[in-house]
């Protein structure tokens, strides 16, 4: 009897927490369809804020910047991180403490310290050499830096989970390291590589602080644009872009759920 009360209480608490987690997002979505520009009263359904978005060149360019940044940085991080992950596995019996520290550094460093140290560094290099002008290039560098550890750790943990004799067998089967990589390593790592790519992509799209400090005047991403718009004064247009971004995340969530299910069967 007592146990059932506890369970009921927990169920109620669960739904309260879920409401708490989704309420801010639902409000943003609801008010993106608001006919008036009030942030407090919903006066009627309209798509006017979405129409405004389509005509806003800054938003469209911010969208492309976000996309290019996320894709390019994820691809570069995948290549570099994958190599580190493999190296960590192959040489796991050596003392690689320095490497572990190096890999955890981007994860533990507070975003703001990460962002401003890169910004200060890039600005100084630029002043002295003309290289590394703040823009999409510096943002890509910064994003790759925080993505590498996650890729490396995913690849490493996948390799550790494999049977070590598989590597011996591959060595006997395929003569050259290149063939071994193409026929054995990459196919076995495929699920890990896919999830590492998606994680890198999500991390990139999710990031604001590091992008904000390493961006140039022309390379605003969607979160940076939204930030600027909020600072200028809350406008319902922000709700509309935000809703589109939430929609993208929702699709990603459904896909990951389906992918996860497929993986288990």
């Amino acid at each position: 009897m007592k146990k059932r009360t506890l369970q009921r209480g927990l169920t109620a608490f669960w739904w309260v927490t879920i409401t708490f987690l989704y309420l801010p997002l639902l409000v943003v979505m609801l008010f993106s369809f608001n006919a008036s520009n009030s942030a407090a009263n919903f006066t009627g359904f309209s798509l006017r804020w979405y129409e405004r978005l389509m005509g806003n060149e800054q938003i469209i360019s911010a969208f492309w910047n976000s996309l290019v940044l996320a894709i390019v940085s994820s691809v570069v991080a995948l290549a570099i991180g994958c190599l580190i992950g493999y190296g960590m596995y192959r040489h796991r019996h050596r003392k690689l403490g320095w490497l572990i520290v190096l890999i955890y550094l981007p994860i533990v460093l507070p975003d703001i310290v990460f962002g401003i140290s890169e910004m200060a560094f890039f600005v100084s290099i630029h002043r002295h050499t003309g290289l590394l002008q703040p823009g999409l290039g510096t943002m890509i560098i910064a994003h790759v830096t925080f993505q590498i550890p996650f890729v490396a750790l995913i690849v490493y943990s996948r390799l550790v989970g494999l049977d070590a004799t598989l590597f011996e067998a591959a060595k006997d089967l395929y003569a050259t390291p290149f063939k071994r990589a193409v026929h054995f390593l990459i196919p076995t790592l495929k699920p890990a590589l896919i999830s590492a790519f998606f994680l890198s992509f999500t991390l990139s799209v999710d990031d604001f602080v590091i992008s904000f400090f390493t961006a140039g005047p022309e390379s605003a991403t969607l979160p940076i644009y939204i930030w600027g718009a909020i600072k200028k004064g809350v406008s319902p247009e922000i709700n509309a872009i935000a809703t589109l971004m939430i929609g993208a995340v929702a699709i990603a969530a459904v896909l990951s759920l389906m992918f996860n299910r497929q993986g288990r069967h």
Partner: protein
Amino acid sequence: MTETNMAVRSRGVVSETRHLLFSVMPGAVWIIVFLVLPSIYLMAVAFMTNGPYGQPQMPLSLESFRQLAGFGFLGWSPGNLYTLLRSLWQTLLSTVLVVIVAYPIAYYITTCREKWRPIMLLAVVVPSWTNQVIRTFGWMNLLAPGTPLSDAAQALGLIAPNMGLYPSNFAVTLGLVYNFLPFMVLPLYAAFEKLDTAQVQAAQDLYAAPVRAFWHAVFPQTLPGLLAGTVLVAIPAFGMYVIPELLGGGKGMMLGNLVANQFAGSANWPLGAAGAILMLIATFVGLYAMRRIGKRLGGGEEVVI
């Protein structure tokens, strides 16, 4: 050992080392060049003097640390000290609140049917996939003047008429709890899932009161998850920038805002860098403390740091 054998072995060692270099070097060099060097540069900046345009200059000095402690042209002011104390307080408060919410949620998920658990975990995590700026903007919408929540708070006399619930310290705490809840639920859930129920059963069989049973049989087993969660919540919360900037206003500023402002509007790089050093020290002290606590209480090896 014959000579040829030695030669083969040493060649093997050389190629192994070369392999290590080729696989690990690109990434290691990348992180060193684009993160370690910038951090060292930033630390150096903290010991320089602020130039007229906010650029760091020689000579070396400790001026920035004096400024961080509150000493300025007009003598000492407590502003920065308040900011620092507020950061500590907000971190502590929001971490405790996150633990209080996350414990029952993580436990509840383990009591549900196995096929629902991944979906429930996903439901907790999905909101955090949305950009932080958007999530915080959602709370601005919810807490603005004229919204039901603000009206309710006014009716209860918690805030002055025609005011919103933001900007305020309350809004910052709320934003932090909202932001970091999933980071505590996940490691706690992992701990609960591994929980050895025999111990709990034994405690109940020995007529332990529920609180006692929890404290002696459940809590120690979930400790690794709790410590990992605390690291994931408290360290980023202490350096938080977006949430206090949007929900806190002038009186809700935290260390992250103090640091960031020195690189934007008021331009005083050395002061900002000194603040960043403080944040780094806090980060590493926090990590070290968690490791020590974890080891002392016996769950240390499982803490993923």
